[in-house]
Each structure stands twice: as C-alpha cells, then as structure tokens.
C-alpha cells in the first residue's frame, strides 16, 4: 500500500511540472529507484498508471533507473557494493556497513508534448 502513496507523490510532481510548463500531455516519466530503496518498482509503476489515468500524464511511458548500492565497509576501509539491505560485505563477509548510496527515490525528468 505504501507504493500507492508514493505513486500519488510521483504523479503530483509530474502533473504540477507539466501544468507549470503549459504542457498538454506527458509522454515519459523517468524515475531513479535505488537498489536499496524501500519500494517495489513493479508495484509503484502499476500504481502510477492507476493514479495518472485521468490526468495529463495518462498513458505515459515509465522508465526506471536503478542506481547501485554503495556502502562504506569499516573492515575493508573502502566503498563496496552490497547485494541487498542486510547483506554482508561482498569482500570480507562482515556486516560493518554504512550505506552511502542506493536508497534514493526520485523523479528525474519528464517528457512533455
């Protein structure tokens, strides 16, 4: 269910931007959903399509980029790429990881006609 609320935020950002630009139609929406982001991309896009269906962004194509996870390993003393939230350091197997990237959820841009 929290995907539905996130979708409402996405569509609000998209529609506000399109309206301010005087656009008639939004054809594409580009999202960045980090590899560790607390969201299910599939469910989010499904909800976006539902929420947007009566507005200027109805029928828009969604593109999703998945920025990689990055964490500082206090054991290896460098940035590593954990496989998932709660996963160990891929190099040393330790769990002293400080997540630095990969949790973001952003609307990057939209294409309008």
């Amino acid at each position, binding site marked *: *269910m929290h995907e539905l609320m996130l979708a409402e935020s996405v569509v609000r950002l998209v529609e506000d931007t399109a309206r301010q630009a005087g656009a008639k139609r939004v054809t594409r929406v580009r999202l960045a959903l980090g590899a560790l982001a607390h969201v299910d991309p599939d*469910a989010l*896009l*499904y909800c976006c399509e539902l929420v947007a269906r009566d507005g200027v962004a109805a029928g828009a194509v969604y*593109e999703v980029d998945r920025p990689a996870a990055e964490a500082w390993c206090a054991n290896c003393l460098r940035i590593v790429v954990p496989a998932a939230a709660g996963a160990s350091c891929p190099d040393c197997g330790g769990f002293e990881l*400080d997540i630095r990237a990969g949790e973001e959820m952003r609307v990057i*841009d939209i294409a309008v006609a």
Partner: protein
Amino acid sequence: MCTTCGCGHGQVTINGRAARPTRSDAAPRAGYRAVAPLDAVHAPGLDAERTLRIEQNILADNDARAARIRAQLKTQGIFALNLVSSPGSGKTSLLVETLRRWAGRAPAAVIEGDQQTANDAERIRATGVPAVQINTGKGCHLDARMVAQALGQLQEEGALLDRSLLLIENVGNLVCPAAFDLGEAHKVAILSVTEGEDKPLKYPDMFRAADLMILSKTDLLPYLDFDAEAAIAMARQVRPGLPVIRLSTRDDAGWAQWLDWLGAGLARAGA
C-alpha cells in the same frame, strides 16, 4: 499487486527463484521499459517533445511535513518516538506499562495508529494520559500529514505540553512504516520473543531505520526456543551497533534502562 494491502510482488521469489518474470526483466510491456544508466545520453528535440527536469525526492512532500513537525517539537522540547513492529509484538501493552512507570517524571501524550477501532487509544486514556487515535482505514502506515493532524488535535485539547514525551504507535507492520518520517527523534523497533529471531533479516528496512530495538515479552523466554543473542546479532547485521533493551511488562527487568533512555532523550530534546 496484492489486492488486500497493495503490497508489491515484483521481487517475489519461490525457493529463491523469481516467481514469474518481472516487468523489469521481461519483454517491455506497454508503459514500461528498462533504461540505460543515469548518465546515458538523451537525444531531445528529435520530435516535438520537451524534457523537463524535476529531480525531486518522491517522499519530498512527506519529508517537508515531517521537518515542520520536528521543528515544532524541538521548539517545545518534546521528545517524540515512532514505535514500529509487527502486529502483536505488544506495542500497546509496552506503552501502557511505560506510562504507568513514567508517571510523575514529565507529561506524556500518545498518538495511536491502527487501521480500525479506537481500542488502543482507550487503553492509553485509561492510564490518564491523553491519546489521539488515527484510523488509517486501508492504509498500512502513518505519514507526516496524519501525525500533523493528530498533533493539532492534542494541541486543541491542551495536551501537547512543553518538555513532554510523545509516543507514536505506528500501524503494526514491519514493511511500509520504515519509509515514512513522522518528525520523530527516533524510530524504536519492538521485537517480541514469540516471533522468529530472524525477523531483522527478513524485514531489514525497518530494523535499519531504527535507533533502538526493544526485545519484548522476555518473561516467556524459558518456554520458547527463541535465541535472544542470535536475534540481537541479526539486528546488528542490518544496523551495526543498534542498542537493544530487553524487557517484559510482567517483571522489572530492563525497565530502569528503558526509562533512563527516555529520560536522557527528553533532556536532550529542544537543545
């Protein structure tokens, strides 16, 4: 998508294998295709389309509301906690007992979140502490807008006092509430010993978002196979250094530690 709560299923696996091709790795379907990395070159201007940059956090609206709540709480020196757990971990019992033992130290108020019923707020009010019940209907988490409304209600009742404790009991759900900042000082995750000790690994987002874990119902440990040390180790896998307090509403163990933690937080609030 689950039609009951709307949970997504795009990353569902059965025995570790994808339950079905997800839209992101299957052939492109109408309305959705995977794309190149962020720095991929775009070729705008090939048709009448224009690209408008937005670059905004999807949670920006909630986060802005949460920031306003946090600022208001700081002005009043209120120490606010967002209590999160599975349904049935004993959040409300923990709150009732906390308020009973906290009585006389400083004023307190409670915001209760549930899909339905005002039962929990009534249990809190029976202790003499003011409480507001938020019913989310089908919603699975509290958000900052709901909490702002509840704070308004407490204010109207004259129940939001300076230098007080504000305890927010989130909807019982170890998934969705992790993403939503309510303006609290800390999320406190409660794990009861009647649950599986590997819950922190099963629901890492929530335990990673927490600043304290309470291991509750510890009086039941002699009757269970629950390995408390293993549970704590797993919580610290997802959240290195996570402080843990073990307690039960049925005995005195851990209570001095929990009340001291609350007292120290209240002393820092507004500073």
